[in-house]
């Protein structure tokens, strides 16, 4: 019994992120993907926060006399409109900069909410098992049988366009991603020695779940949140592209891409620049997620 207690406590300290700051951050900074992608996203966040100060023009200001101007350095470019204008004479650069606001809002809010709901259900299914697992797993099965894009379009059509609907649609669809991974991870952790030891000492089941298992599921979870942020940005763009996300008064990358798709033959810049912004952001979230997974995983870290 004495031996077991000892094993349990050493395991406990070894597996738990008790001192989160430097010990966790150092390996993260050694991972180039985390530094580069994280740095890019940080800059994007600053752009989103300070868009009114950075953007050279008002993103909504129309000037039909200045419609369809090409980017700087192209013949016929209008000075001051660095990335050209759209057919209504609105500044493309300012609209792309402002578009980061919606993209990042959707990314953070939708990914966090999906993560919370999915993790709670995943922990319940993986740890308590029995009927909880049966009900939750069956729900996940049903959810997986829906084509996600069609379901998101359907949900936004049901709830009405707007930022809240877009976020709700993403959460309603994507909680399963977290639930599946957390459930499997919890089941795997539950079989490990330290959980057995904690049970032997007499820790309550909920104590073990929150204080022992959750911290060990966290690394996978954090990486998954980053990946989900990239997915959320894409889904918002898809919904804007279909014309269901937000009113055209609010600049979004997807809305700009849809607009640019219509006029792609005589104004490629309206299409290209928001697409590049979308691509870079999704790539950054993806690389950050994969980098975090490598850096936080004690096994993969070697």
């Amino acid at each position, binding site marked *: 019994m004495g031996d077991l207690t000892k094993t349990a406590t050493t395991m406990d300290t070894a597996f738990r992120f008790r001192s989160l700051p430097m010990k966790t951050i150092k390996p993260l900074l050694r991972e180039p993907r985390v530094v580069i992608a994280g740095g890019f996203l940080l800059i994007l966040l600053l752009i989103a926060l300070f868009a009114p100060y950075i953007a050279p023009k008002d993103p909504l200001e129309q000037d039909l006399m200045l419609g369809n101007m090409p980017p700087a350095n192209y013949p016929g470019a209008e000075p001051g409109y660095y990335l050209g204008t759209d057919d209504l004479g609105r500044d493309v650069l300012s609209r792309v900069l402002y578009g980061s606001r919606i993209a990042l809002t959707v990314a953070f809010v939708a990914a966090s909410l999906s993560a919370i709901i999915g993790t709670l259900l995943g922990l319940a299914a993986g740890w308590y098992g029995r009927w909880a697992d049966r009900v939750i797993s069956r729900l996940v099965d049903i959810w997986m049988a829906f084509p996600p894009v069609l379901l998101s379009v359907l949900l936004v059509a049901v709830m009405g366009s707007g930022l809240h609907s877009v976020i709700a649609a993403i959460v309603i669809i994507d909680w399963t991603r977290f639930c599946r991974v957390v459930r499997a991870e919890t089941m795997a952790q539950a079989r490990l020695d330290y959980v057995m030891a904690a049970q032997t000492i007499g820790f309550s089941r909920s104590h073990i779940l929150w204080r022992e298992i959750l911290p060990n599921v966290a690394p996978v979870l954090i990486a998954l949140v980053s990946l989900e942020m990239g997915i959320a940005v894409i889904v918002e763009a898809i919904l804007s592209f279909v014309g269901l996300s937000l009113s055209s008064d609010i600049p979004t990358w997807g809305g700009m891409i849809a607009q640019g798709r219509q006029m792609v033959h005589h104004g*490629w810049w309206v299409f290209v620049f928001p697409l590049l912004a979308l691509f870079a952001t999704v790539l950054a979230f993806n690389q950050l997620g994969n980098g975090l997974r490598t850096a936080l995983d004690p096994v993969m870290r070697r």
Partner: protein
Amino acid sequence: MTASDLLNRLVMAVLTLMGVAVIVFCLLRIVPGDPVAMMISPSATPADIAALRAHYGLDLGLPQQFAIWFGDVLKGDFGTSISQRRDVLELIGGRLPATLELAFAALVFGVLTGGMIAVLGALARGTKLDPALDFINGLFLAVPDFVWALALVLLLGVFWPVFPLSGRIDPGLTTDFRTDFYLIESLVTFKFAAFADILAHMVMPMLALGLPLAAIVVRTLKEALAEAMVQDYVLLARLKGMSPLRLVLQEALRNAVGPTLTLTGVQFTFMIGGTVIVERIFSYPGLGNMAIDAVINRDLPLIQGIVLTFGAIFILVNILVDLIAAWLNPRSAAHG
């Protein structure tokens, strides 16, 4: 997989589909906007509207509506489309072939391209090409079909316009098809002009759907090949003097294909889901494109029919993948 396992899976599949049906049915009843209001003339009297509502069963309670609809579905009657006033099953049957041809073309493209690059990677193991390949593939893994589709619109549609940007076939060529499988039919009836035209229309949506799949095949197969290459029997074959290419193709590939196949199956269902937006971007007349129109038109019977069709396809593909996996590796099936 034993017969009882299979039966179990099929029962589960039916239950899952029923769950899908219940959810989509309930979801659609809370759609704001009256479908009847969209199909009548402004001069209709309240009595006309009530008659129409009764005709579509919209005046009954929710459970009754569901029971009637689901009973009809089980009999193979999916109802009548409100926006197109045609039988839902007939509409789906007319569009599904286009989507299936596209999805299978993308599957073949993704598996062949990914397979070739994975073999190349296995041969280049230890050289500078190997990490370069991993890096590029890492980028490809991050790009979803939606972004590919838009990038292709730009690259192959506008800057270097070699392929048609939208549609499935040149309008002048559609007149005399007997089936809706245009690609297959034009090939087997030797209409090569039509075949080439359909293929050209398919190139961009196929690339958009197939490239993400190829990236996943590269990653999985490359890893599995690397593992297989250090097994004893491969080392033995190498000692016997077998060339590296034959070694990979004849010995390692056969044993590495299992995990790739399972993952490809899962990805294939995701890809079918991806056809919805990709078809939309290229105005490709498939099931997904019709689905978005149906949502915009609030065409409840059509939406229900399409969602159930997609659900049935997903579940069928999953069962099929499990069957193939069990057939390839009987040991794992016996255990689980």
